[in-house]
């Protein structure tokens, strides 16, 4: 059976762009702001392409769920080395549960052996899609991966995870889900010829209705606010002043 890898990618505000809260306080300004592929998804695409180059995987499929601008993100992944792309047309403010449901349907259609995602998107920082997808599909998962080793012969994958206490190594039977952390690899820059070639690849567009998925949002954003400005501290002249100030602020 051919070893296919599915890589979902997301179009987010560029990591270096200045974030401004919208006047209606229900989100951030996205008009005329530079957008690009989520950096963690870039790392996921790079890992999938490396597995293909080491002849472990046979093909890499990049998926993006969002408005038609997400096609640019898919083309970027195709330029990096993915073989095919799928675009699912949806609104820009999809929640992770809706994404996971769509991905579940696509996994059932495409039948990949590995789904490699970025650990979280830098715009909403949910860190939920990989975990929800694993729950919906009932597949094993390894999140925050910093090293992935696939053993094709025994159909297993060994993943080293970055956790609070250090590193944890897990072994899972394929098919499985992996979510990438920052230190997994260094994503490549697409060569000019590959960018030109990627423009010619046909990417089919599907809709959630076609896939039979209910993507109504169960969450409502109540408000989005900027973090409180840091108030400067004050300098004191002697130890007695420090003690007096601490007593004044009822700390001691």
């Amino acid at each position, binding site marked *: 059976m051919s070893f296919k890898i599915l890589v979902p990618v997301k179009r987010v505000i560029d990591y270096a762009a200045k974030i401004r809260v919208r006047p209606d306080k229900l989100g951030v300004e996205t008009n005329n702001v530079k957008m690009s592929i989520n*950096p963690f998804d870039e790392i996921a695409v790079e890992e999938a392409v490396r597995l293909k180059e080491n002849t472990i995987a046979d093909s890499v499929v990049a998926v993006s769920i969002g408005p038609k601008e997400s096609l640019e993100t898919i083309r970027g992944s195709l330029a990096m080395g993915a073989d095919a792309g799928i675009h699912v047309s949806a609104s820009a403010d999809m929640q992770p549960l809706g994404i996971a449901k769509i991905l579940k349907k696509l996994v059932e259609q495409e039948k990949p052996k590995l789904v490699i995602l970025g650990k979280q998107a830098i715009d909403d920082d949910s860190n939920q899609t990989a975990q929800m997808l694993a729950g919906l599909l009932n597949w094993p998962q390894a999140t925050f991966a910093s090293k992935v080793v696939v053993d094709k012969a025994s159909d297993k994958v060994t993943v080293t995870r970055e956790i609070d206490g250090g590193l944890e190594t897990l072994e899972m039977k394929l098919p499985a889900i992996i979510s990438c952390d920052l230190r997994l690899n260094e994503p490549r820059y697409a060569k000019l010829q590959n960018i030109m070639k990627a423009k010619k690849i046909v990417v089919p567009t599907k809709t959630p209705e076609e896939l039979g998925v209910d993507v109504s949002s169960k969450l409502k954003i109540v408000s989005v606010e900027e973090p409180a400005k840091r108030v400067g501290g004050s300098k004191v002249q002697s130890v007695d002043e420090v003690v007096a100030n601490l007593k004044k602020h009822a700390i001691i």
Partner: protein
Amino acid sequence: MATSVQEARYILLYLGRISFLGVDYVRDRAKPQFLANKDLTDLEEINKCINRTKYVVGEVEAMHKFHKYRTLKKAYDREFQLVNDQFNVETFNLKDNNDNMNQKS
């Protein structure tokens, strides 16, 4: 396959666009140098210029990768936020051979 001048220039400006430097910064510094060398006919000289562009492309790539990694690491690592990176666009100088940017033409 050897890169032509147009390809080298396209790669440089494309990188300027995706990196934190911005296409304006890169173009303002690259255009005078391309224009100053536009009348070269010797293949060796032209290849030297193309190699110079490739070197600058490598520098911009490295700077961008580093900036991206550091920014993401700081965003998700509380203690690391105290490290002072000094990513100042003004202090990153594209190599200006032959002092082309200061020539009055």
